[in-house]
């Protein structure tokens, strides 16, 4: 019992527990869930699907975690920024006004970098509003939430721009000869870069200090504004990368649908990862596990034949259960009940 209690206190307990729970349900419902096969030289299976499709959420969750930690707020613009980044990439590759090309106007890498850069610009805009002008994060990012998708539509001339150029599909699907989906690699690279940045530098300490007490951090020699700005910038870049991956997946820029509701999944991943949305201390690994858990939930629901538009009902119920169990008020209530029961037992 003592050991169990210790286990539940571990920071990664909640996300791992949820993950295992989801997988367990699948194991009971349909063991086929776990089967992995090789078709046409690439891996197939639900598990692969989760790792593949969950990558965008994982990439977003990395940035979102930092933003939540540093500013006790959420960046709700990431989904829209994904769309903008995809649109600007495709617009550049196809040339303005063209809605379907098979020959690129500029080298592919230029377009992709431009897309990521647009994400960075959006992140910088959010960062400037939050860090310099001290605007509440949700309000500040509300601006781009509304505008970024609309700007993307303008860039693509209100159409879906298709890039029918084989290598463009690699990033969101498979590299020829590699059985593992590319998005997973992209996610790993992003996680590694940010992870190393946090581990090898004092950035993690700085972010937590600013998130907990910005004034005190400043007095202690940390430039709170710059740290806050950096976090939003990283978040924007992550959204940019996720946007390119999402665009490559469908080799097009569908402004209205790319990244739709992804901000919610990203925020959910952070919460599911055991991070307080009130900022301060954070745990990157938790967020990433949280991200894949969310994808696992989505995939499970699909596998069970729940249609995409009805799936949110279950997602909502899961979210509520998780946050309720995590809520300190609920924990205190349960503890009090347990104590009461013990007392009754003692009296008897």
């Amino acid at each position, binding site marked *: 019992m003592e050991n169990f209690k210790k286990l539940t206190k571990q920071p990664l307990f909640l996300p791992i527990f949820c993950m295992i729970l989801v997988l367990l349900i699948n194991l009971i419902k349909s063991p086929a869930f776990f089967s992995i096969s090789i078709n046409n030289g690439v891996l197939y299976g639900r598990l692969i699907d989760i790792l593949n499709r969950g990558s965008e959420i994982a990439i977003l969750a990395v940035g979102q975690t930092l933003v939540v930690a540093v500013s006790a707020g*959420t960046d709700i613009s990431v989904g829209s920024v994904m769309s903008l980044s995809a649109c600007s990439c495709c617009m550049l590759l196809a040339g303005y006004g063209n809605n379907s090309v098979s020959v690129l106007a500029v080298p592919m890498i230029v377009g992709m970098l431009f897309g990521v850069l647009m994400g960075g610009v959006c992140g910088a805009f959010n960062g400037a*509003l939050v860090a310099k*002008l*001290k*605007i*509440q994060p*949700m*309000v*500040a990012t*509300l*601006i*781009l*939430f*509304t*505008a970024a*998708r*609309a*700007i993307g*539509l*303008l860039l693509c001339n*209100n159409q879906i721009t298709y890039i029918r150029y084989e290598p463009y599909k690699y990033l969101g699907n498979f590299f020829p000869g590699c059985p593992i989906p590319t998005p997973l690699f992209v996610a790993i690279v992003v996680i590694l870069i940010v992870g190393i940045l946090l581990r090898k530098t004092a950035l993690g300490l700085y972010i937590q200090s600013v998130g907990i007490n910005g004034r005190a951090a400043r007095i202690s020699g940390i430039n709170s504004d710059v740290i806050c700005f950096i976090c939003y910038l990283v978040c924007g870049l992550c959204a940019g990368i996720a946007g390119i991956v999402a665009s490559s997946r469908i080799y097009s820029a569908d402004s209205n649908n790319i990244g739709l509701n992804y901000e*919610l999944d990203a*925020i*959910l991943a952070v*919460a599911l990862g055991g991070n307080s*949305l*009130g900022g301060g201390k954070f745990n990157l690994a938790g967020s990433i596990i949280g991200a894949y858990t969310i994808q696992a939930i989505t995939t499970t629901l699909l596998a069970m034949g729940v*249609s995409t*538009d*009805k*799936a*949110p*009902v*279950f*997602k*909502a*119920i899961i*979210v*509520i259960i998780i*946050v*309720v169990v995590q*809520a*300190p*008020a*609920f924990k205190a209530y349960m503890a009090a009940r347990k104590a009461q029961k013990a007392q009754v037992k003692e009296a008897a």
Partner: protein
Amino acid sequence: MKTKKKLDTNTVLIIITICLFIFMYAVGCVIYQDKGFGNFQTFLNVLINNAGLICVTCGMTCVMLTGGIDISVGSVIAMDCMLLVFGMTEWHMGAVPMVILVLVIGLIFGAVQGFLVGYLEIQPFIVTMAGMFFGRGMTAVICSGQISITEADNPLFYSWANAKINLPAFLGKVNKHGKVVVPYMRPTVVIAIVVLILIFLMLKYTKFGRNLYAVGGNQTSATMMGLNVKKTRMLSHILSSFLCSIGGILYCLNTMSGSVNQAKGLEMDAIASAVIGGTLLTGGVGNVIGSLFGVLINGTITVLVNTNGKLLSSWANIATAALLCIFIILQSVFALVKARRNK
């Protein structure tokens, strides 16, 4: 002795909002004179189209005053519309029972969210995000297609939707044929305005209204002063969801249809309207009169873009975002100046 009152910054913000609306509308009148923008009816149409949003924004303002947020409103509206339409077309229910049902569902929805926010102290953003998922999903559960309601389905509801309230003829305009076109309103507008006035009075003159401000001003202090913060926050969410249900009914009267994608992003319109109207997301400051003008500005932008005809509809989004940006920056600059002065 009469002390001279200083204009505080919050009042200034509301005045700016009102001036901006008047300015925007005037510019519209001048540029699109030929397209009938100057008609009184155009203004009334802005009200008619946004009657639902006015109700929702009132509720949103109340929640935001406590420092909370309710992003579930868009999907609750979609759910309400779908339920109304489905109930009247497929179940052949009467209009009145359906309306009552929708209102009751609104109350329950708000009570659950409010309980989670108030008593379990879970962040409102997360709770209402779950509410948003739930509402949207339930809409699809009721029916995943797009359905609409016709006169044959429910004559009563149809007659509500098409009822006109004519205004005095002198406000109208003589058309090409020399006939006076009498301007009209819909009952939805009257309901929205009544709701607005009631909420305004509630915020100013009732204990509950002032408690909302107190909780948003400083939650710890409010607790220490003996206010029931948990209950207040719960009630604010119930109020928001209830007003949202009223808004949903008005919305349905306008569109006469239900679909999964209805009212998508409406929560952001409501939040943007409230912020443009001078409500702070940190809580404690705001007023529904400001929110009304926020909605009107939002509506006018849409009409301006539509009237132009050549502009893509995404320009309306960009314009709203730009305005939001300006207002947020103004608010923050005012707050920074204030902080510096107090120092």
